[in-house]
């Protein structure tokens, strides 16, 4: 995501906005008629895979799915490089999710057709970052947004990518996490060098009063050797209707989903809840990427 310039990001987001009426079926499109998108997912996924499939179908193209890894030649020991060399001759673009970091970068070296990274292990997940930016743009404001990011700031690479992208928009960032899950110092240093104002706290109550957007992520149990400690941290970051009493009226709450217990279901019906809309925005954003990559739009 660091490689994306502001102009490139803006262009993708503007394209997504143009395509949103197709995403909600107000208009029909055959922009990518006859084009084939290969969807190679080596790890389970619900939202990313389905929203890519919806995106190509809404634009009139076709999906070629590998199906499960167990039923494919990967289970016979085929390398990813060989799979890519074969599939690129069947499709116009490949969407890849793989457990190894750098898999999409490697795949692009073996493919004549574009490869879109739909997540590579603990590495990058750029289309998630783009849809997060789009959600902020549509539901709040991107330029100078005051945003709190809460949860695992240490290992959550999607949060890191989002911070780098927000640096283009002069965002004011508050990071909310327990001490043991603080964002790595090199990244903070890097963000500050890009002119960003970054604050750190472990109190969500304090952060929530100031911000336009609260982006919360799941804290993984396996990061904590002591289950009691995990429970203490997870509870301290939970979003409840009571907590929201001190929030700005226009505050939007985002979450990449799936959620476990980070957000009380009672929050779902408040005007602050934005996470299901965020999941929907994955469709126009991925439509925009496909349209731009597969030649439907420039």
């Amino acid at each position, binding site marked *: 995501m660091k490689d994306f310039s502001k102009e490139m990001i803006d262009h993708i987001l503007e394209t997504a906005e143009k395509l949103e009426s197709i995403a909600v079926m107000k208009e029909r499109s055959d922009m990518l008629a006859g084009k084939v998108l290969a969807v190679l997912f080596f790890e389970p996924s619900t939202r990313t895979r389905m929203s890519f499939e919806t995106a190509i179908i809404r634009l009139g193209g076709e999906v070629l799915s590998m199906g499960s890894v167990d039923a494919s030649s990967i289970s016979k020991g085929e*390398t*990813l490089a060989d799979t890519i060399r074969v599939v690129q001759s069947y499709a116009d673009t490949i969407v890849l999710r793989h457990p*190894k*970091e*750098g898999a999409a*970068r*490697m795949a692009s*070296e073996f493919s004549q057709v574009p490869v879109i990274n739909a997540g590579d292990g603990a*590495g990058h997940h750029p289309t998630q970052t783009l849809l997060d930016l789009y959600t902020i743009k549509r539901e709040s404001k991107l330029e100078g947004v005051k945003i709190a990011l809460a949860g695992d700031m240490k290992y959550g690479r999607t949060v890191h990518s989002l911070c780098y992208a927000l640096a283009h928009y002069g965002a004011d960032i508050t990071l909310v996490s327990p001490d043991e899950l603080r964002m790595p110092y090199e990244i903070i240093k890097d963000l500050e060098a890009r002119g960003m104002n970054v604050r750190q706290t472990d109190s969500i109550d304090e952060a929530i009063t100031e911000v336009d957007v609260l982006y919360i992520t799941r804290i993984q149990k396996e990061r904590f050797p002591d289950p009691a400690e995990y429970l203490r941290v997870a509870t301290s970051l939970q979003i409840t209707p009571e907590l929201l009493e001190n929030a700005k009226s226009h505050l939007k709450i985002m979450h990449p989903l799936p959620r476990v217990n980070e957000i009380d279901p009672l929050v779902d019906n408040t005007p602050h809840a934005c996470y299901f809309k965020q999941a929907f925005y994955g469709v126009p954003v991925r439509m925009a990427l496909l349209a731009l990559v597969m030649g439907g739009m420039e």
Partner: protein
Amino acid sequence: MNHEHADFELEPGLRVRPIENGTVIDHINAGQALNVLHILKLPGQFESVVSVLINSPSKYGKKDVVKIENRELKVKELDKISLIAPSATINIIRDFKVLKKNRVKIPEYVEGVVQCINPNCISNSSEPITSKFRVYEEDNTINLRCVYCERIISENIADHLLRE
């Protein structure tokens, strides 16, 4: 003794004699000489004389020096040496004279030289690729950023050199 050759010779008393033909690697960061030998797979089956000086005093503090008789270096070996001894100079000796003297060049990229420290990096799997790193200097330290997973190696690079 040719006077050019003298600048990596030591003060009178001559701890290591000049060589007739071969390579002198001078200005190696102190303490890295054995890693340089490891890169060059020396001594191994090599039969000529190899002299090693460790923590030798010089104008700029301590340094290591390696002299290898009857051997010149390959580009890949030079790339590896530049990562652990960026100030090293390579002196090619013919008939006791310095035929050529160059400082090692830090390459922009290195391929198949270092192993990525990230066990989950695609370059550490059975895929038909070699490791690839972008090399850059920051605060006088050599950093290697993996082209695939972007993990950065900035310490103990010698520990991650790939054996061929």
